[in-house]
């Protein structure tokens, strides 16, 4: 199994505004580090350019980052042990404060490239029910074996 992660951030201003210039400038180097990190599998891209963000219908000023990794450690080292950490540190310069979780993880079969709809559903699940084997966080992490043995509440309801 591989580990999928979705991050969402609500921008303080339009992405082409002066306020967001620092963030946009970091997209290329951070994506370059992501894509060459050990254990990186796949990332949903908005276009050919490194600064192309993913287009979607989940609201204006919402940027999404959806990627798949070989393990928790691989994802951790990218998120917290690379140039990406400074983006997290500076989040208030660019993103709105949100009380809800803005990041979710779940296990996917190897080779599966989750569509954004699947990822947003996992974030909704985390927000509605808290961490579980099908939608969890670094702090409340679930192994892939736990995900396999317990069907997701969201999937049961289908």
């Amino acid at each position, binding site marked *: 199994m591989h580990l999928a992660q979705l991050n969402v951030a609500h921008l303080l201003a339009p992405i082409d505004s002066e306020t967001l210039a620092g963030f946009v400038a970091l997209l290329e180097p951070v994506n370059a580090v992501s894509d060459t990190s050990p254990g990186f599998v796949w990332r949903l891209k908005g276009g050919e350019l490194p600064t192309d963000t993913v287009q979607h219908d989940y609201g204006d000023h919402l940027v999404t980052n959806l990627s798949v990794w070989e393990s928790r450690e691989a994802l951790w080292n990218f998120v917290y*042990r690379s*140039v990406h*950490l*400074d983006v*997290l*540190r500076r989040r*208030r310069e660019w993103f709105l404060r949100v009380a809800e979780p803005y990041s979710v993880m779940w296990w996917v079969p190897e080779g599966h490239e989750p569509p954004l709809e699947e990822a947003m559903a996992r974030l909704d699940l985390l927000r509605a029910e808290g961490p579980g084997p099908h939608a969890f966080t670094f702090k409340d992490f679930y192994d892939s074996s736990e995900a396999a043995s317990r069907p997701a509440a969201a999937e049961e309801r289908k």
Partner: protein
Amino acid sequence: MSALADPVRRRLYRFVAGRGRDVGRNEAAEAAGIQRTLAAFHLDKLVEAGLLEAGFRRLGDRTGPGSGRPAKVYRRAAGELSVSLPPRDYGTLAFVLAEVVDLLGDDEQVEAAARRVGRRSAAEDPGAGLKEALEARGYEPYDEGSRIRLRNCPFHTLAESHPRLVCSVNLAMCEGLLEARGERDVAAALDPRPGECCVAFTRTGPSKNNED
């Protein structure tokens, strides 16, 4: 902890920990100025005590037949030990406070407080050089080109549970320390790597050429 009562053992521990990589018996013996067999005895005692970890690795470039069997190597154990008498538990308290700060989410106040603490701490060692001051705070600094990097994160456990918060605090404290020391030619920035502290220092000013 009594494993470190012996001065030779302390010397060996400091040497292995300071390398930041696998160290063979010969190298450790030489550094401590003792016989190889004595060094091996003490190194193994340190492994028994959980202060070092041992493994086997081929030292040198030769491989295949004739390269000899892998040598026993030592590195600092990943776990941490702390001693407090009478018992104190600041870790749990720090964890609770970090949870609260994360919930409140006031990054600016957090960084301002950390910068103040860093600034104030500069008074503890007024005569010390920057690396000495970092050493005294548990960072284990080392040079990499014209930069100073830090081998050890003094806040490791909390940095694992609350990385964004703890690394932001750490950077702000380092910046406060630089500021109060009047280190105008040195800048601190986040440049994390797996297994090391997240902060690195770059010499930005005129002293750069002298130190390279």
